[in-house]
C-alpha cells in the first residue's frame, strides 16, 4: 500500500467517524447522503469525468432524457453491489464487526479497501458509506439489502 493511499484511507476513515456521530445524533442517514453527494461532485471536479464512471455498468452506455445526481441514488446503486461483497458470513468485515463496537473508521475503511481492492480514486466515496455501515451495523445493512432484493423495501 503506497503512502498516498494510506493518507486517503486515513482521511476517509476519519470522515466516516465524524459522520457516524452526526447520524447517531440526527437519528437518520441524511448527513451521509449529503456527504456522498458532495464526494461525487468533488470526484467530477477533480477528474473532469462524469459520475457515471463510479457506478457499475449493468448495460451499454446511453443518452438520457435527464440526469439525476443525488447521494441517495448512489447509495442505492452501491448498496446492492456491496451486499454481494461484504455480507459473506466468513468475510473479514463480518469478523471485525463481530468483535465489538470499538473499531475505528480507518480500520473499517482499510478492511473494505483490501477486501474489495478498491481503486484509489473512489476510496473517498466510502467515507459516507462506511458511516452508514457503522451506524446501522453490518447485520442490519445486510438484512436491509436482502429485504430490498426480495422487494420489501
Amino acid at each position, binding site marked *: 500500500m503506497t503512502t498516498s493511499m494510506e493518507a486517503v484511507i486515513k482521511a476517509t476513515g476519519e470522515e466516516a467517524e465524524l459522520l457516524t456521530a452526526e447520524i447517531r445524533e440526527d437519528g437518520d442517514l441524511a448527513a451521509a447522503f449529503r456527504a456522498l453527494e458532495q464526494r461525487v461532485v468533488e470526484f467530477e471536479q477533480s477528474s473532469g469525468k462524469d459520475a457515471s*464512471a463510479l*457506478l457499475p455498468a449493468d448495460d451499454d452506455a446511453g443518452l438520457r432524457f435527464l440526469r*439525476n445526481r443525488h447521494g441517495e*441514488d448512489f447509495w442505492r446503486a452501491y448498496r446492492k453491489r456491496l451486499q454481494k*461483497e461484504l455480507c459473506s458470513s466468513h468475510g473479514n468485515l463480518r469478523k471485525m464487526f463481530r468483535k465489538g463496537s470499538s473499531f475505528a473508521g480507518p480500520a473499517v475503511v482499510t478492511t473494505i479497501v483490501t477486501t474489495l481492492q478498491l481503486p484509489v480514486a473512489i476510496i473517498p466515496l466510502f467515507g459516507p458509506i462506511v458511516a452508514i455501515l457503522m451506524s446501522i451495523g453490518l447485520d442490519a445493512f445486510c438484512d436491509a439489502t436482502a429485504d430490498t432484493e426480495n422487494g420489501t423495501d
Partner: protein
Amino acid sequence: MTQPPTPKMALTDLLKHYGDAEYRPHSLRLSSAAMLPLHALSAGALYLVDIMLSESGANQRYTNSDGRDFPAVAFTPDVSWKKDGAVRTTYDRLSETEKAEVLGFLTFPIHEMTHHVDHLTTPFGILYHASCCAEYVAMQRFAPEICSSAESFINEPLASLRDCPVLGGSSAWDNLRTWVRFFDACRGAPNWAVDSSASANVQLFGVTLSYCRIYNSFESVRSLAFPRYYLRPTSLLETRAVVHSLRYILFLFDKQEAARHAIQCYIDSYYPAGNSTLDYTFVLDLFARMYSGIGSFTQLIAKAPTEAIDSWLLLLDGLCWYSLQAPPRLDFGSSRAVGPVERFIFGALHFARRLARERELKIKSVVSLLNGMDTDKTLQELGCTPIEPSLKHSLDHLADIRTTSMANVSNKNIRSHFQHVFKAQTYFMRQRQGHGYNSFTGLPENGNVVGSLLRDREVDYLGLHFAKYGYQPNRDVVDWFSDRESFLFRYRFGAENEALRNRLRARFPPLVGCESLLCKCGVTVTGRVPSSTWRYYCRCPTCGVRLRISRLANS
C-alpha cells in the same frame, strides 16, 4: 400474461424513472425504463392522455416485447390542442405537477428517438458506429494481452488513463486507444486530456470561448464560466433532443401564448438551471444570447414572442443538424475537413456575422439556409465540407468499413449486428443524396421525430424494436456492449473485476499467426488473428489494395 397494475406515479417518481431511461446507441435500444405504461400516470395526467388519444383518432398502441405500451401519443403528432377544446381545457385544469407529468410523457419518445435518428441517418452516426466496429477489431488484439494476468487487468476506466506502466509499449493498446478516446471525448474526457494551451479565443454572441484540444486529436471550445466543461458531440445530440421536445410542446399549443408557461413548466421540472448537466443547457444558453439583451435560455423563454421562440429553436435545430453532417473521416480528399463541434462553432459564427450585417435573419426555410451555407467561401475555407460530398464520402466510408473492419470481426453475432447498422446507414445515406440538408426525420416538422418517421414509412428501417419488423440485437451483442462499458469506462472492484476478466478471456481467444502475402506492389503483408477466425482482411500499407490473408494452417 397480464401485467400487474403499476402504481400511480407522482412527478418525483417519474423524474427518478426517467433518470434511468436512456437510448443506447451502440445496441440501438431503449432501456426498459423507457417503456412507461400509460396507466402509471396520475389520474389527471392519464385522463388527458386518453382524451388526446381518442381526439386524434389514435386507436393503436404500440407494445414492446414485454407487453408494455410505448407512449402512443407521439405517433399522432399532427393534432394540436385547440383553444377551448377538450384536451386544452383538461390541461388547464391540471395541477402544475400533473402538467409536467403530461409534457414529460409526451416528449420522452421524441427525445430518445432523436438520438436514434441522429445515430443512424447522419455522417456523425457513421463515424460513431464505424469507430465502434474498429474498436471491436482492436479489442481482438488487445484483450488477450491484458487478460493474460491478473496484475495487468487494472480496475480503472482504461479510456481515461493517462499513464499506465502495464500498458506502456503495447502496440495493441496504442491501436485500441485511438477508438476508445473518440468515445471518451464525445462523452467527456478527463481534465488532463483537455489541452487549453492554444490561448486562442473566439467571441460568439458576446461570450468568450477558448479553443482547446481533447486527447491531442479533437478540437473544441470551452467557456471561461465553465472551465471544466468543453463543447462535445453529446451536447449537440442532447440539444437537438431537447429542441425537438420544446418545438413539439409549442406545436401542441399552436404556438399561442399558453405555450410559454408550458415550456417554463417543462424546463423547471426536467432541466432546472443549476441542477442539469451542461450537455442539456450549455448550447441553449449560448445560442439564446444571439438576441440582444437576452442572457440565458430561460430569459429568452420569458421575454420572446412564442413565434420567435419557435423560429429560434428551428434555427438551433438546423445548426446542430448541420454539425452532425461532418464527414466521418476528416482526412479525405485534398483538404482537411472539420468535425462536428468545429462545424457547430463555425456555423454559429456565420449566423453571428449575418446577424451583424442584416440585423435580422430573414430565411425562407432552415434547409435553404443550410444549403446556402455550403456556398459560403469562409465556411469552405475553414473546412466545413458541403453536404453532398459529405454524404458521398460517408457512403464510400461505409463500403470500406464493411469490407475491412466488419469483415475482421471474428464473432458472428457482433459482425451481424454491425452488418445491420451499416446496411441501415447505407440506406439512409442513399435516400438523402441529392436532397441537401432536407430530411423529414432529421428536421421534423413540429419537432416530432417519431411522427415524421411513421409518415416516411422508415420506422422499420430504423430498426426500432417496437416496430413490426423491429431489430432486436442478439444477447451476445448486448452482453458485449455492457462489458465494453464496464471495461473501458468504469471503476470496478471486488469479484466484479475478476468476473469481467474471465468473460473477456472467453470472448477474445488468443491470437495466432497468419501466412505472409506478397502484395502486387512488392510489400509483404502479414498479421495475427483470433484463433476463432480463419481469414483476415487488411489494406496494404503502401498501395492501399485490400488483401485477404489466411490463418496459418497449423496454428
